[in-house]
Structure formats: structure tokens, C-alpha cells
């Protein structure tokens, strides 16, 4: 089934990136239909917003070792758009998507944003995988006079500094930020008295730095007795983690906290297996290990029980939580549509579209200033549970559990089980924010 998934994915990529994201493959029917219809017999009544189509400009990384994330963003957004268009759009206006490759390069991301907003005419911007890209787009949003809903980029600085500090109100984030992998991990493992020596294998860029710093801060608060005995930094394009793994293992840690994600994450834990790490440690926390591409990548190993029940992870949404009708429906539709399970960036993107919908319907306007009002303080039910957009920092507040990676007969790939759920108050940082120090 992964094969089929792949093929459809590749085909999807081609057309989607060809610049007709909305009007792809299976979508053709609806999308194209919609476009012929609207000019054919315009119904003034249905033009509450004065536009035939509401344009959504998305971007994410769709090439390289992290490419699956961009794909998931497109897939989620496309699903939502199809659903909404099928029900007649938003206040009579259909939705159209254009999706571009961010390449994890801030310069490219900014260029995309400018193109989408000022040339293609997007009403909303969303997506963005890399924190660097997010930090670069944020400051130009006022000039572009567009809202950008960040679906994945997770640096705390985006909301804490740019929104709360600098007051850039066009920035919103629907995804849980680094609080997730840093603080949830801390809350889980404060309960393990015999895990005293921690090591880190972290991304050698802001994301890794902030997660590691925050994790250490929080854990220290609850467990003054733990030590952080070794650390290795892995830049983008690390082909071989064995040097990093053996370096941190040299300090004989009880547990390891790791941030490398997507393909690099898979490589990391598989090479850790090769180095017999899981015989030596009590636990391994893989930050975004709850992401579908990661779980797919290690299915065989999990099935063979090679991780000895020691592999823990979280994500910014997992498909088997919460147990609500909304979530069931979403996962079901997503699997029907794409023949894969949704990872968090898919759910984040999917919900993003519905947040836009809610905001437009609430304000009956496409003016950015109105929409900002519309989203601030918004409470909305999404597959990931109820989200609340905190006015101070425009961060969506919702709870995602952490858990152990294990097989579940209900799913073709491993899932997070033995879930540990925490109240958002317990692990989100709350305003007023004091800057996080990233010293050792």
C-alpha cells in the first residue's frame, strides 16, 4: 500500500507543483467544474465577498530528505478545499490552491510569499516547514498585508518574539510549537526516577537549539537530580549519524532526546539500532516520531520489536488521538483520498483551511485587518481537538499527547500508544514571555 501511496504522491507532486494545486488529479472533476460554472451563470446573491474564488497560497518543502512534509501539507489542504468546494465554497466563493516548494531556504520562501500575495493574488498564505523560512516571512507580512497561518515551522520565536514582542499581527500558528517535543518529553520523563543521565542528538540549527534548551530547563525544574551528559549536533544533510550516536553514547546516558526529523530521523534511529543503542539505554525520545513518514520508515523494525519498547515520541497531532467523531471522519476521508494516514502537517493544513473559513464567515470580509480580528480568540473544533487562538501571541492552543511507538492491529503502520496526555497550561509557555537562553 505504501507503493500505491508513493505513486499517487509523485503524480500529485508533479501536477500540484505545476501550479494548479487545487485542480489536481482526482480533484479535476470538482475544481475544473467549479471554474466553468462560476463565469457561466454568475449569481450575484452568492457573491457575498465580491470574488468568485478565494485564493490560498501555500508552501512547504517538497524536495529532499524532508519532502514528505510538504506533501502532507498539500494533501491536507487539498482535502479540506475539496470538502468545502463540494459544499459550495465559503459564502459562495470557491477555494483555489497554489502550492510552492520552500526548499527549506528562507530566501525562496520569501520570494514565494511575495509572488503568491502580490502576483498570483492569494487572499491567505499558509504552510511553511522551516523555522528559518517562517522567521523570514513573518516580518514582510505587514507589507504584503496578508495573514500567514504557519502549519509546521515550530520555533517559539515566531509567536513569542514576532507576534508578542514585535506585534506582527498577521502571523498565526495552528501547529503546536517546540513546547511540544521539549516540554511534553520533560513531563513524561520526570516520572522515570532511574533515568538520570540524558544525552541529546539535536539538529544543528535553531530548531534543535531551542528544543534542547527548553527540554533541559523544564526537566531540571521537576528533576534537579538529572544531568545532561552529552550532546551532538547534526546539520541538514547529515548522511551518517553513527559518529553522533557513538559520541553521545560514550557518556553512557540513560536516555536520549533527539530532534532530527523526517528521513533524517528514520536514518538516525536505524543507525542507533545498528550501534546497539537500545540495549544500553532505557528510553529514546524522538521528537517528531509521531509523524507518519517516520513511522512508515521504521515499520519493519517496530514490528520486529527491535526498539524493545524504548522508543518514545510525540507530534503536533497524531491520527489516533483524540477519539472524537471529527478526528475519525478526517482520518477516514484522508485515507480514502490519499491512501495514506495523515501526519500532523496534513491535519494542521486541513484545519488551517477551516480556520480561514470560520474567520471569513464570521467577519464576512477578506480584509486582513478584519480577518485578524476574526481569528484572534477564535475557538474552533478540529480533528486535533478544540483549538483556541491565544490573542497575545496568535498561537493555537490544543493538547497533543506523547507516547510509545508500537504496532496496532487497527493500522498498517506503527502508532503512538500508552499515550500520556497533559493539559495545555502545563506545557505551553505562557505570556509574558522571557527570552529562552540557549547557553549550554
Amino acid at each position, binding site marked *: 500500500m505504501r507503493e500505491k501511496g508513493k505513486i499517487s504522491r509523485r503524480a500529485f507532486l508533479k501536477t500540484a507543483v505545476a501550479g494548479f494545486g487545487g485542480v489536481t488529479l482526482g480533484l479535476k472533476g470538482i475544481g475544473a467544474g467549479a471554474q466553468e460554472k462560476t463565469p457561466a451563470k454568475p449569481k450575484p446573491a452568492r457573491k457575498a465577498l465580491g470574488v468568485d474564488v478565494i485564493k490560498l497560497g501555500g508552501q512547504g518543502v*517538497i524536495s*529532499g530528505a524532508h519532502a514528505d512534509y510538504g506533501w502532507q501539507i498539500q494533501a491536507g489542504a487539498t482535502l479540506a478545499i475539496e470538502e468545502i468546494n463540494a459544499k459550495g465554497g465559503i459564502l459562495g466563493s470557491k477555494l483555489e490552491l497554489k502550492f510552492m516548494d520552500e526548499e527549506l531556504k528562507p530566501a525562496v520562501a520569501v520570494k514565494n510569499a511575495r509572488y503568491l500575495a502580490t502576483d498570483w493574488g492569494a487572499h491567505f498564505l499558509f504552510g511553511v516547514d522551516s523555522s528559518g523560512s517562517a522567521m523570514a516571512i513573518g516580518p514582510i507580512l505587514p507589507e504584503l498585508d496578508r495573514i500567514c497561518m504557519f502549519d509546521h515551522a515550530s520555533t517559539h520565536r515566531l509567536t513569542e518574539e514576532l507576534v508578542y514582542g514585535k506585534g506582527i499581527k498577521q502571523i498565526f500558528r495552528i501547529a503546536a510549537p517546540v513546547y511540544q517535543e521539549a516540554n511534553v518529553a520533560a513531563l513524561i520523563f520526570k516520572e522515570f526516577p532511574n533515568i538520570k543521565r540524558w544525552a541529546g542528538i539535536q539538529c544543528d540549527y535553531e530548531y534543535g537549539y531551542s528544543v534542547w534548551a527548553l527540554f533541559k530547563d523544564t526537566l531540571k525544574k521537576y528533576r534537579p537530580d538529572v544531568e545532561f551528559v552529552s550532546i551532538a549536533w547534526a546539520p541538514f544533510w547529515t*548522511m*551518517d549519524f553513527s559518529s553522533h550516536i*557513538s559520541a553521545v553514547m560514550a557518556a553512557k546516558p540513560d536516555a536520549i532526546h533527539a530532534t532530527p526529523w523526517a528521513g533524517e530521523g*528514520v536514518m538516525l534511529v536505524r543507525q542507533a539500532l545498528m550501534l*546497539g543503542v537500545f540495549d544500553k539505554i532505557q528510553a529514546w525520545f524522538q521528537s517528531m516520531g509521531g509523524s507518519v513518514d517516520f513511522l512508515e520508515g521504521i515499520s519493519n523494525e517496530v514490528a520486529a520489536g527491535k526498539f524493545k519498547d524504548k522508543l518514545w515520541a510525540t507530534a503536533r497531532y497524531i491520527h489516533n488521538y483524540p477519539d472524537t467523531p471529527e478526528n475519525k471522519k478526517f482520518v477516514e476521508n484522508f485515507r480514502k483520498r490519499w491512501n495514506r494516514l495523515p501526519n500532523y502537517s496534513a491535519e494542521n493544513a486541513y484545519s488551517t483551511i477551516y480556520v480561514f473559513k470560520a474567520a471569513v464567515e464570521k467577519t464576512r470580509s477578506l480584509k486582513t485587518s478584519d480577518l485578524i480580528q476574526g481569528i484572534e480568540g477564535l475557538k474552533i473544533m478540529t480533528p486535533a481537538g478544540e483549538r483556541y487562538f491565544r490573542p497575545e501571541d496568535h498561537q493555537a492552543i490544543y493538547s497533543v499527547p506523547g507516547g510509545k511507538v508500537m504496532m496496532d492491529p487497527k493500522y498498517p503502520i506503527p502508532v503512538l500508544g500508552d499515550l500520556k496526555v497533559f493539559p495545555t497550561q502545563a506545557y505551553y509557555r505562557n505570556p509574558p514571555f522571557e527570552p529562552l537562553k540557549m547557553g549550554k
Partner: protein
Amino acid sequence: MPGSPFLMNEGKDMETLAFQGLIGLSVAMYLWLLAAGLTIVFGVLGVLNFAHGSLFMLGAYFAFTFYGLWGVNFWLAIVLSLLSVAVVGCFMERFFLRHIYHMDHAYQLLLTFGFILIFDDAVKMVWGGVAKIPAMPSFFEGTVSVVGRPFPVYNLFIIGAGLVVAIVVWLLFEKTWWGKMVRASASDREMASAIGINIPRLFTGVFALGAMLAALGGALGTPVRVVAPGIGAAMIIQAFIITVIGGLGNLKGAFVGAVIVGTLSAYGILLFPVFELFLIFLIMTVVLMVKPQGLFGG
């Protein structure tokens, strides 16, 4: 900076250093396989092949296709991928490089740089942009104990493979008639062709050999590494560094250079987690400044 550059990780006893060195050595072997081809091609053809890393990538992709997708036996898959890349190499040499040997090195760099762009997108077209990670052949799983710590059998195998290749290549150039011809034409093309060596065919052969070595590096990585567009471009700079350190066109230099870079970054990660990247380029620069012909260059 995350911790001062001199933040030392804990527990730096001899065993640790030895183990880390051995790990670094296994990483170094991939680099050696990559650099060997690069330096041979430069030494004989006088071309610095920017696209050499892309041949490494192609090797990985072919191996992944045969072994990971079509389930061909691992060893056979590697052989097949070498041959496929050799064909690509011959094509490159025969139809493109051959026509610019006489030209300024700048054009050689530019031409081969063009090939990087082509290969990167070509693999994207064929295999898609998403990274590929096939399963590892079971007979490579498991570890052996080194200084009391588990060391992967696979890394051991890689070290072995690297050494074997080193010996084979050395024998090839020092002991065989073909090697003698190659060295003759490397030192003096006119003379060589005067004594009836078919230079063009020889050069095609040499380039193919270089391509195969790169491909081998890529192919051996597939079971444990990620296969994605761009890994070639990511690797080539390291290969440059190595060949420059060892001396452009110098095989022994390439081997030593690879070992230096591989182990050094391993120790860099262990000792100064922050400065690894800078360190490597610093070495390259110093070598270029002080002894541009490289540590082993004449």
C-alpha cells in the same frame, strides 16, 4: 552558540577515543571511495569533475532500485549499479568531457557543474523528491564488541571494503599493464600516443573507473543511509576538500585525506560539537595556503 566551542562531552578515556576513531574510519571509507574516483580522473584526465558526487548519488539510486524496489540480491544489486553508473560515466566522457580537455579548467568545472543540476533533477523525475530508505540486508545486522562497546558489523564491512578497494586500485595502477599505460599517458599524452596507446579509449576507461568508485560509495550506503536528490552535491565539497588536502590527482593522498576528514569530523563531533564544519574548511584552506599541491603532492 549552543555551548562554548570548547564544551567537552563527558568521559574522554582512551577507549572512547579509539571507538570514535573506528566509527570515524568507517565514515571515512565512503569519503575515500568518492574521493578516489575524483582524484584518479583529475590525475589522468586533468578534469576536476564537479559532478562526481552526482555519480555517487546515481550509484545509490540504482542500488536502491535493484535491491530496495526490485528485491535483487544485495551483492548483485551493487554490481548492477556500478555497471549502470559506468555506462553513464562513459557517456559523459565520450560525448562531453572529451571535447573540453584542451580547454581552461574553468569550463571543465562549469560543464560538470551543469551536470550536477541535470542529474539532481533527473533523479527527482525518475524516483521523486521524497527520500528513500530501503531495509538493511539481515546478514549485516548485529554488532561485535569493540573496547567493550557494540560496533556494527556493517561499519566493519565498510572499513574492509574500503581497504580492499584501496589495495585493488593500487595494484591496478602499479602492477598491471593497463595501469602502466594510464600512468604513461597521464605524464605525457603525446609520448603515450606516440608509442601507440589509444588515449581516447583509455581515458574513457579511466573515467568509467572513477564513476564506478563513486557509485560503489553510494551503493554501499543505501542500506543504512538516506537516498535523496542532492546528496551528491552535498558530498562533492567534502570530496574536494579531501583531494585538495591529499593533493589533487594523488591516490595515496586521497586515502589519507579521507581518513583525516572522516576521523576528524568524528572527533570534532565528540570533542567540539560546535565547530566541526569550520574545522574541516580551515584545514583545507591551510593546506592550500601552505602546500597547494597537497600533503602528498610532488
